[in-house]
């Protein structure tokens, strides 16, 4: 209770102060009394005539003063009462608050503490007054509290912390706010502390975090299980289907029709099992959100035509006509082709399966921003009851249908889920005996101003095998193209130019150039887009690209496998030199032939010289190393068995020499090499050519193939590292 008095003393006016106040008021009230005689009439008359008057005035004054005093006293009492009420109110707040509150002096002694705070510290409030937290807290906690208190005492204003404290009463997580308490001179006299116990909240949060982690890991485990299950089922199924097919083929050849029929049934059952595995996998992936859509801009009608063409044999097998009706005005759409194909295949598949000697019509139209694909058949149809369950898993209209018509019974479930993912939907109407109509609605998507047709056309061009000795220059500035053409044609290199990104991609696919010189600023798309599209196409992922920019290269060049970089305006000789690395027949390479057999060495060297190469020779390992250190060759032809330093020793010496480590080696040997040695040589990109088995022409052929291969860079900088 001492602390309570302390606070009261700070706030209440003392009696001494009140007395001064009243005295001052009296002084003020008396002023007219002393002033009166000076303003009254002549003094002589006043003594005789004015005595009654003076008494009257005095009485009046006394009454006035008395009234003023009573009023003042009342006012004072009211103020006192109000202040007392305020203090009680504050006390009540302090006592009954559900947050912990304390007031401490400069030395950390507790002046006031409420029950909540005392409860946390594990002692009754009265036992804590005048003490520091050291008596109720572990040394670490006390230290932390002192540190935080001192921040406030040192004038850092109001602070807030999340504190984890260990008291006698237990361990708590507190959200604590501290503020300075000032005395009448506005100096900091202590610290006020308000703490909210968030232990429970922290506990709950942690529980939630753990629950989420567990759920995530369960989800991952489920995905992993799914992937493994799929793998484990497929592996034996591969043998079952493959061996049944093999037996079927053999039985057919023997004209053993009975066995052939049995095996055909095994094959069909195996395929049915496979389709079930695929469908279950699909559903699980959709449900666990593991399916990603890959949308691209396509010509929808062309897509549907290709699907329908692939379904014609199945339709004809049941005597059905399968037709496409495309409304005018349906052009491009941005869709996931694989998934849309899956849905449409499923619908047409069902339609031709449940229709005999009838018609299946696929209608394509555009309804505003939506694409509509309607698949209508003249088949067996469904009852309203069947219609209701048609999208549920394993709900073919009738159990017997699975046996009669095959299918997993999951196709429509998957179709509906896929369409949901794509932002579309599917509906159905049907009459028993007169057929069913499935309607798919799908947003057209953002087709932009893409000229998707040129993609389709580029795909139609049959790629020519191998790479042609052509340089493809991509720049929307014709003058720039001409400049490159001049620089390169001077050296007898064929140049083809493309003025847009679309054209560049189409020409890359149809021409298969040896190297592309790509400007980064194009009209329709950026050079980065062109690069990304090329790298995404496995056919051209390794096409060497020389990038031209007016700016400095950024880090994307590394990611997208740019082999060289040219800054505009570029030097003609530099460009020509770069391009030469990727174009040309590999003639004029410098080679070194090392063999202790004089006849063999010289004849090989001559054969290679006739091909236009610069050839040095060396009779032994030491000599070879001397020549190479002087001038590293493009390729080393090395005999394995030599007196003195043998082939392996030369390779070992080269490995440790930074100048020679990158030189590719072709090992020419008559000796048998053990697999262990081969394994050691493997990382060095050594080509083995067996002497005796290979004649000179073979060696020359191998040299050229190797030179060609070495010229194709693998992922940019790795080219040298790999050799």
């Amino acid at each position, binding site marked *: 209770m001492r602390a309570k008095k302390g606070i009261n003393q700070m706030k209440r006016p003392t009696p001494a102060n009140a007395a001064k106040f009243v005295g001052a008021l009296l002084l003020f009230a008396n002023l007219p009394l002393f002033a009166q005689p000076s303003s009254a009439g002549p003094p002589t008359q006043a003594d005789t005539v004015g005595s009654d008057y003076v008494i009257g005035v005095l009485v009046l004054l006394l009454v006035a003063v008395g009234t003023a005093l009573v009023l003042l006293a009342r006012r004072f009492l009211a103020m006192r009462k109000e202040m007392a009420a305020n203090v009680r109110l504050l006390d009540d707040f302090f006592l009954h608050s559900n947050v912990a509150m304390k007031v401490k002096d400069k030395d950390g002694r507790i002046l006031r503490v409420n029950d909540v705070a005392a409860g946390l510290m594990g002692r009754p409030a009265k036992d804590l007054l005048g003490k520091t937290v050291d008596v109720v807290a572990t040394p670490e906690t006390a230290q932390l509290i002192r540190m935080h208190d001192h921040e406030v005492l040192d004038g850092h204003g109001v602070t807030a912390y999340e504190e984890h404290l260990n008291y006698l009463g237990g361990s708590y997580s507190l959200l604590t706010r501290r503020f300075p308490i000032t005395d009448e001179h506005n100096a900091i006299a202590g610290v006020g502390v308000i703490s909210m116990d968030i232990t429970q909240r922290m506990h709950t949060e942690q529980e939630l975090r753990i629950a989420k982690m567990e759920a995530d890991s369960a989800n991952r485990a489920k995905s992993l299980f799914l992937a493994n299950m*799929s793998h484990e089922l497929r592996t034996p199924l591969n043998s079952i289907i*493959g061996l049944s097919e093999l037996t079927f083929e053999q039985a057919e050849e023997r004209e053993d029709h009975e066995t052939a029929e049995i095996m055909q049934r095994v094959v069909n059952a195996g395929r049915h099992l496979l389709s079930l595995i695929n469908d279950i996998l699909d559903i699980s992936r959709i449900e666990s959100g593991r399916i990603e859509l890959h949308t691209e801009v396509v010509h929808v009608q062309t897509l549907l035509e290709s699907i329908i063409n692939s379904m014609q044999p199945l339709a004809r097998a049941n005597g059905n006509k399968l037709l496409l009706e495309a409304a005018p005005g349906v052009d491009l759409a941005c869709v996931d082709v694989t998934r849309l194909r899956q849905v449409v295949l499923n619908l047409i598949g069902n339609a031709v399966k449940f229709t005999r000697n009838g018609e299946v019509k696929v209608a394509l139209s555009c309804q505003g921003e939506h694409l509509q694909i309607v698949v209508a058949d003249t088949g067996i149809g469904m009852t309203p009851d069947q219609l209701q369950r048609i999208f549920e898993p394993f709900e073919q209209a009738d159990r017997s249908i699975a046996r009669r018509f095959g299918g997993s019974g999951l196709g429509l479930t998957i179709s509906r889920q896929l369409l949901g993912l794509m932002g579309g939907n599917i509906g159905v109407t049907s009459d028993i005996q007169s057929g069913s109509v499935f309607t798919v609605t799908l947003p057209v998507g953002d087709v932009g101003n893409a000229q998707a047709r040129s993609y389709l056309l580029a795909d139609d061009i049959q790629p020519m095998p191998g790479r042609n000795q052509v340089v493809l220059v991509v720049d929307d500035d014709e003058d720039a193209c001409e400049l490159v053409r001049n620089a390169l044609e001077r050296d007898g290199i064929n140049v083809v130019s493309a003025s847009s990104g679309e054209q560049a991609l189409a020409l890359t696919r149809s021409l298969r150039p040896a190297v592309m010189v790509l400007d980064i600023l194009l009209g329709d798309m950026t050079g980065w887009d062109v690069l990304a599209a090329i790298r995404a196409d496995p056919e051209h992922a390794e096409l060497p690209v020389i990038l031209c920019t007016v700016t400095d290269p950024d880090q994307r060049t590394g990611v997208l496998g740019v082999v060289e970089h040219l800054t505009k305006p570029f030097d003609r000789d530099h460009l020509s030199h770069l391009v030469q690395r990727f174009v040309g027949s590999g003639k004029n390479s410098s080679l070194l032939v090392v063999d202790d057999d004089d006849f063999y060495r010289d004849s090989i060297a001559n054969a290679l010289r006739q091909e236009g190469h610069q050839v040095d020779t060396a009779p032994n390992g030491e000599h070879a190393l001397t020549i190479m250190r002087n001038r590293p060759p493009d390729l080393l032809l090395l005999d394995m068995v030599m007196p003195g330093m043998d082939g392996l020793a030369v390779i070992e010496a080269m490995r440790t020499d930074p100048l020679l480590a990158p030189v590719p080696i072709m090992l020419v040997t008559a000796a048998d090499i053990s697999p262990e040695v081969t394994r050691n040589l493997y990382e060095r990109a050594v080509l083995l050519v067996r002497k005796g088995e290979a004649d000179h022409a073979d060696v020359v052929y191998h040299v050229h193939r190797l030179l060609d291969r070495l010229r194709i860079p693998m992922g940019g900088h790795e080219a040298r590292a790999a050799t």
Partner: protein
Amino acid sequence: MTTVLYVEDDEDNAFMLGRRLQRHGIQIRHVEDGEKALIAAVWKRPDAVLLDINLPGINGLEVLQKLRANALTRDVPVIVLSAHVMEDDILRAMQAGANAFVPKPIDFPKLLDALQRVIQHDNPDLEDSAS
């Protein structure tokens, strides 16, 4: 004769595909792990490699990366055969440098097509012996 190196640890699968390809005039060299595959590929360059992904020791993707990092085998066509058929699996195989991906269970005519395509593509002058 076209020679294909088949890397497969499942014996039944190896037996089945070996028999079937032989009927189409394709010689199979079968090895059951990645280490042997790398040695075999260097020792006698095959016309193509059929590569399983789940292998004991170094897995198929690593084998593929090593084949692609070596100048000798950099351009040997590789068809990945795998029962791991998730999109990620296929993408990883293509990124590692596979020429084609054929999922297991194998659609045999498709595998033959893929084989003919990659072999002709790699070696236009080579007379195709697959029928």
